[in-house]
Structures are given as structure tokens and as C-alpha cells.
């Protein structure tokens, strides 16, 4: 009987395995594309083809250099587990960066994955920067167990839209990231601040820390590419 079930299950896994892998792939790519554009009207096939046509990626180390392939196999950026990497000391992590290009010659948007802690459990996100590597084009946040109506708002369009157009560098060229303030409807917001979520200060702080920490880690890469007129596509897909 064990043999019967073992065979049945192995058979199922063999048949369904490839389909399952595709599901995971679609899921990851949806998240990355979602930071840059509204993909709610696209079906999975469209997402996959759009992604493969316009997105390239690279995996960096803490100094902003591409990590060379190990043993002949280059690291696939989409498969880097941000959560697992978060647990490693930041000097030894793998940092994937995604680059979106409309026409295929130069990069239009850069997308940076990040990970952190909210109130109850982890939070994560993708920050998409414009080609000037300063202005935010969009963000996509996710969380494990934040309180609905409070911290969980970070995954809503309402909160994520607040980041559009904000800048992460100040006029002196220092990276100061974006700060979410404590209250909603603040009278005036600088180009580096967004309104907060009332009752969800701890989540907001976690968000701020996550952005600052990871942007600092991506800084070498950002500086390298910031002063070029345009970044030409030079990384292998």
C-alpha cells in the first residue's frame, strides 16, 4: 500500500511540478512588475511575456558588484529569496536588482526588493526608481500579519500612491530615503516625506527602517549608475 501511494504521489508531482513552478514564477514577476505599472488587467501569459521582453536583472554584492557565477551557473535574480537573505549579515547578502526597459536599449526604471519587520511579523516591498535613480515611480508593499485597517494598509493603493514622485536624495546628494510621518493629513510634506497611518506607527517605523536600510545597501550600485546619462543594457538576462 505504501508503494501504491508513493507511486501515485510521485506521479502527481511529476505531472504537476512544471505547472507549479510556473505559478511561483508568475507570482514573483507579478510583484516586481506591479511596482512599476498597473498590471491588474493582464492575464498570466501577458505578464510573463511582458516581463521577459522588458525586464533584465542582476544580482549584486554589498559593494554593488555583480556576483560572478558560481560553478558555471549564474544566479537567477528572481529566485533569490529576500527573506532568507535578510537573516544573513548585510555584508554577505545577495542583492537582486531589476531593470525595466521600454525599448530595450536603456533602462527606464530600476526596481529594488527589500525586507523588514512590521509590528507583528515581516514586511517586504519593491521600490521602483525612475532612470534618475532619485525619483520614486512606484512602490509595492506586502506583509505577513499586520493588522487589517491599520498596518495592513501598506499593501493598499492608497498608501502606496503616496510614494509616487518622492525623492530619495536631498540637494546635497545624500541618500535620506523616504520618511513616513506619524499622522495623516500633515499640513506640508517635503519631497522626502509621506503621510502616515493613524494607529499604525510601529508598522510605519518598520517601513521607514526597511527602506533606509536597503537603499543604503543598494547605494553603491545606485551611485555607479546615477551619473551616467543613461544606463545601457549590459547585464545578461
Amino acid at each position: 500500500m505504501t508503494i501504491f501511494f508513493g507511486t501515485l504521489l510521485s506521479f502527481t508531482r511529476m505531472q504537476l511540478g512544471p505547472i507549479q513552478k510556473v505559478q511561483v514564477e508568475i507570482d514573483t514577476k507579478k510583484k516586481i512588475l506591479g511596482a512599476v505599472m498597473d498590471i491588474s488587467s493582464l492575464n498570466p501569459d501577458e505578464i510573463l511575456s511582458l516581463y521577459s521582453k522588458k525586464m533584465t536583472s542582476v544580482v549584486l554584492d554589498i559593494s554593488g558588484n555583480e556576483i560572478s557565477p558560481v560553478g558555471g551557473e549564474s544566479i537567477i535574480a528572481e529566485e533569490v529569496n529576500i527573506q532568507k537573505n535578510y537573516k544573513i549579515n548585510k555584508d554577505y547578502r545577495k542583492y537582486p536588482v531589476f531593470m525595466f526597459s521600454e525599448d530595450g536599449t536603456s533602462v527606464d526604471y530600476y526596481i529594488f526588493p527589500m525586507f523588514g519587520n512590521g509590528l507583528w511579523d515581516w514586511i517586504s516591498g519593491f521600490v521602483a526608481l525612475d532612470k534618475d535613480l532619485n525619483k520614486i515611480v512606484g512602490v509595492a508593499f506586502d506583509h505577513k500579519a499586520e493588522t487589517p485597517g491599520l498596518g495592513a494598509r501598506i499593501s493598499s493603493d492608497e498608501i502606496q500612491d503616496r510614494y509616487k514622485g518622492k525623492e530619495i536624495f536631498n540637494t546635497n546628494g545624500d541618500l535620506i530615503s523616504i520618511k513616513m510621518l506619524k499622522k495623516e493629513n500633515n499640513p506640508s510634506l517635503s519631497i522626502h516625506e509621506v503621510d502616515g497611518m493613524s494607529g499604525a506607527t510601529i508598522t510605519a517605523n518598520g517601513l521607514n527602517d526597511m527602506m533606509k536600510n536597503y537603499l543604503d545597501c543598494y547605494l553603491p550600485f545606485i551611485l555607479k549608475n546615477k551619473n551616467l546619462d543613461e544606463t545601457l543594457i549590459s547585464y545578461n538576462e
Partner: protein
Amino acid sequence: MDLINLIIKSAFMDNMVFAYFLGMCSFLAVSKKVSTANGLGLAVIFVLTCTAPLNWLIQQKILNEGALSWIGPQFATVDLSFLQLLMFIAVIASFVQLVEMVIEKFSPALYGSLGIFLPLIAVNCAILGGSLFMVQRDFNLQEATAFGFGSGLGFYLAIVALAAIREKLKYSHVPDGLKGLGITMLLTGLMGLAFKTFIGMTL
């Protein structure tokens, strides 16, 4: 320090009983006394603390994709993760069987007082739940053990407290429809609320 925080978190905020309502089945249906809750709780702590790391090893060394490469490089692409549920439940059932035999040998009195609970632990949702959560949250070995211990501890506190209240309830006037299961549900809800006060506590 992180491990201690993990223990606190899994015992209080992520309490198996109050946050996920696991492990109550057999307890609710069979016992209203603190003494039996005590024995069951201690047994659960022991089984959880041991099966979590055990299943972690199995997950890492046998089940994960590429995990079997320690046998030989030709096995590096084998992915046995679909056997996870079967293997985990087999490990848990065997471990409980082992514990049962050991207790019967060395302390027949304890064996007698635990009675039917011992085999019931094998199908206790909290034990399997502990292993499954551990895999889902990507722990390393120490974290898995700490998590197992913390979850067991939380479970123990929860059911002993609940049994104590249920004992006292015998002297209260509970409406007929609520007697037994109904009032226990409401109780569990209120106690869960109390446990949430530990949120954000770190050492």
C-alpha cells in the same frame, strides 16, 4: 537573545491555542480537570520540542530540492517535498509510540494517569502544526527547536488555564445552550485577547 524572543513570541503572541486554535480537539472532548491538562500539556511540550528539530532535519536533508545530494551528486535534482506530509506524520506517530513505550517501562504510574492521551498526541493538530509552521517560516535548527519549545509552552499555559476556569465553571449558572463547548469558545476568545497584551515585548 533572538532565540529567547522567539520562544516568547511563539508562547504568547503566536500561541498555538489562542492564535490558531490548534490542539484543542481531543482536549475539549475529553477533559475538564487541571490534573489531566497538566499531564497532557507537559507531554506536548516534550513531543513538540523533539519533533520540530527532527522534522527540520528531515526537511533539510531529505525533502528539499537538491537536499539528497549528500548521497551522491546524481541525486542533486531530486525534489521529495511532496512526501512532506506523509513523512512528518510518520515521524510524529513513531516518536509518540517511542515515548509511550519508554514511559510504560520506566513509570507505569505516569503511563496509567496519561491513559488515552498519549496516543492522541500523535494526531494532535498542534504537533503537526508546529512542524508545518516551522517549515513555512524558514527557521534554522536552533530556531526550530526554540519554536517547538515555545509553542509547547504556550499550549501548556493555555490548556491548564482553560481547564482551571472550566473547573470553576461547574459552580456557575451557564445557559443550557452554552454549556460545555459554547462557553469554552467564548472563554478561549477572551483569554486570547488577554494573551495579545504581550505584543511587542522583547528582551
